[in-house]
């Protein structure tokens, strides 16, 4: 999961922002009926382990690609980044463009062939094939634990959002949404999760897009948005992506361009988009290698447009909302609205009955797609990479499918338990979010070296991953105990939290790579014949020369990359 701004600090205010009409309730109820109906319908098509954990490997490139991007597009993502856009301006779009697109294209073009040809069922499964059991166990256990904890945190945050926005009871929101996800994932496994994610993707777009369209009409187009922001916030730069990144103190995020390019663009985003099994699992379900390569590229195309429904509403809030939104602490003290409420405020500003229900359904759909992604990925890693690898090595396929269903239920219950734990001890959230970030960057170092360098040895993979992770934890603890250490970790004492995350990821990746290379030099590599299908130089990648140009993944990746460059130049 990419870092999300502090939406989690949203206070459970006593006022509600939006009141729903019977039409809105009907729209939400229809949504719940449809996702449950899809789960019941797909149960008959989910009999084998391949069906349950990999959706039968039958997904088209469009379904895999949309599901890939929808699993990441949670409601916290929508509300959190809209809030970040209000607070930091268009800088927040870096997390969607340089912080996502290059990594997604790299996954599709370079890494997917190895994941797909190796026929692995998971990223820890790939580590087992490439490096052996110790690397898999370390990766699987950390992923399983972190996935459940993050799922619980998201669940609690979602329930809090529903309480603030609609006045819904927190317990009601937690149980209704989590049980719905549990039912449809238990019934239809990954197939059901993917079907619902594609549905949810449409609802998120159709529910949120109207805010941007009407907002642009009200502001008089993009030039009107920029003019209004400059008039209302003189002397502050909210509308340029790169020109204010020359120094830590010259932009509202307190970040330097090197942190964005190297920390976010090269390490964190590559770590998340190429090795986080939550998203990679969707592409492993593709029906053939071309679909598996095109899936991330299609996902990148849509991801690039997400700022239109996430970042733009935050900027429209800056330009158009009559009051200035404030930080959460000030909002609680003064009764004003906070940054975190910008998306529901814009929703209430433009959307009447019916559209309001659609917008709220978009938020609920976002939450459920994220949670279904978490629990289906957890069920696969638990069943194949922990239970089958460490507890019960030989059992029937039916047994493992049954274990997958039970682990889905237990995973949801554990997430609910985490949500209640967070409710009692709010500070846990900060620690868990930090904890999740510890594994991402080193894992990318381990996987990419394993795929690209055949000399890399099994023990080097394990020790590199372990040392990168431990060093990341060490750097985090160092700054916690001695805040002045920030000037060493983030290269400046002006750096803020996000900047610290960027640089910590960069250092832990470098440490992982250095240790991996060093251990490789003193240990024995696997013979080439054991690396077939796993490593560049030992694997024959099917040629695409017989395909027309417009059918080749590289062609579409080139178009997406060109648009990415153009967008960054336009908003420089």
């Amino acid at each position, binding site marked *: 999961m990419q870092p999300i701004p502090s939406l989690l600090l949203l206070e459970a205010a006593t006022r509600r922002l939006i009141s729903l009409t019977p*039409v809105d309730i*009907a*729209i939400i109820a*229809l*949504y719940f009926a*449809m996702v449950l*109906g*899809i789960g019941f*319908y*797909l149960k008959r*098509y989910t009999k084998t382990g391949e069906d349950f954990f990999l959706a*039968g490997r*039958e997904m*088209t490139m469009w*379904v895999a690609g949309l599901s890939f991007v929808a699993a990441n597009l949670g409601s916290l993502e929508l509300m959190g980044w809209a809030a970040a856009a209000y607070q930091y301006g268009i800088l927040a779009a870096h997390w969607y463009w340089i912080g996502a697109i290059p990594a997604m294209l790299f996954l599709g073009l370079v890494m997917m062939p190895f994941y797909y040809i190796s026929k692995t069922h998971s990223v820890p499964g790939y580590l087992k094939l490439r490096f052996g059991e110790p690397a898999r166990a370390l990766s699987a256990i950390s992923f399983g634990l972190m996935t459940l904890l993050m799922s619980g945190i998201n669940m609690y945050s979602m329930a809090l959002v529903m309480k603030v926005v609609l006045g819904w009871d927190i317990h009601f929101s937690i149980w209704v949404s989590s049980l719905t996800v549990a039912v449809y994932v238990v019934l239809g496994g990954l197939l059901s999760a993917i*079907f619902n994610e*594609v*549905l949810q993707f*449409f*609802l998120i777009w*159709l529910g949120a897009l*109207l805010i941007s369209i*009407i907002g642009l*009409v*009200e502001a008089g187009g993009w030039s009107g948005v920029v003019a209004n922001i400059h008039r209302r916030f003189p002397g502050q730069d909210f509308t340029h992506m790169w020109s204010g990144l020359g120094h830590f103190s010259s932009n509202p995020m307190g970040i330097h361009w090197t942190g964005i390019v190297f920390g976010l663009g090269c390490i964190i985003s590559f770590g998340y988009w190429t090795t986080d099994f939550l998203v990679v699992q969707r592409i492993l379900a593709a029906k053939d290698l071309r679909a598996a390569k095109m899936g991330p590229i299609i996902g990148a195309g849509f991801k690039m447009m997400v700022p239109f429904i996430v970042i733009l509403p935050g900027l429209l809030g800056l330009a158009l909302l009559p009051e200035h939104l404030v930080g959460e602490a000030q909002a609680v003290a003064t009764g004003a609205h906070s940054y975190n409420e910008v998306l529901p405020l814009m929703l*209430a*500003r*433009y*959307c*009447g*009955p*019916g*559209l309001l229900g*659609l917008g709220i359904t978009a938020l609920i759909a976002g939450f459920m797609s994220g949670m279904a992604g978490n629990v289906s990925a957890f069920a696969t890693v638990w069943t194949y990479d922990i239970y089958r690898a460490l507890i019960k090595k030989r059992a029937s396929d039916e047994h493992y499918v049954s274990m997958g269903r039970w682990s889905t239920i237990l995973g949801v219950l554990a997430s609910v338990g985490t949500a209640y734990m967070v409710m009692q001890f709010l500070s846990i959230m900060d620690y868990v979010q930090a904890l999740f970030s510890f594994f991402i960057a080193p894992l990318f170092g381990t996987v990419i070296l394993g795929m690209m360098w055949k000399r890399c040895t099994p023990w080097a993979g394990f020790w590199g991953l372990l040392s990168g992770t431990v060093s990341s934890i060490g750097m985090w603890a160092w700054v916690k105990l001695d805040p002045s250490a920030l000037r060493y970790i983030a290269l400046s004492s002006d750096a803020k939290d996000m900047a610290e995350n960027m640089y910590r990821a960069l250092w832990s990746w470098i440490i992982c790579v250095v240790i991996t290379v060093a251990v490789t030099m003193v240990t024995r590599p696997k013979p080439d014949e054991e690396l077939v299908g796993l490593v560049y130089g030992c694997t024959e990648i099917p040629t695409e020369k017989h395909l027309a140009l417009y059918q080749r993944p590289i062609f579409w990746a080139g178009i997406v990359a060109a648009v990415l460059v153009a967008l960054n130049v336009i908003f420089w």
Partner: protein
Amino acid sequence: MQEPHGRISIWFFIGILLFAYGILITGVGVYEIFVPPVHKVVLQSLHANAWWGILLLVMGAFYSFRYAPGRHK
């Protein structure tokens, strides 16, 4: 586009839901044209729910028809 094992396409489910949403939202939008609401949203004069509802209706009808079960057998 033939689905494996005769399964109903995901696009059909999407079409049905969007069609139902289109009916509801267009209905409210048209009603508000004739009976303006007491609490108006900003730019109420655009009647966003009417035309956004029609968009959903058209998309829903297209997907429901194009990917209807049995249409490709």
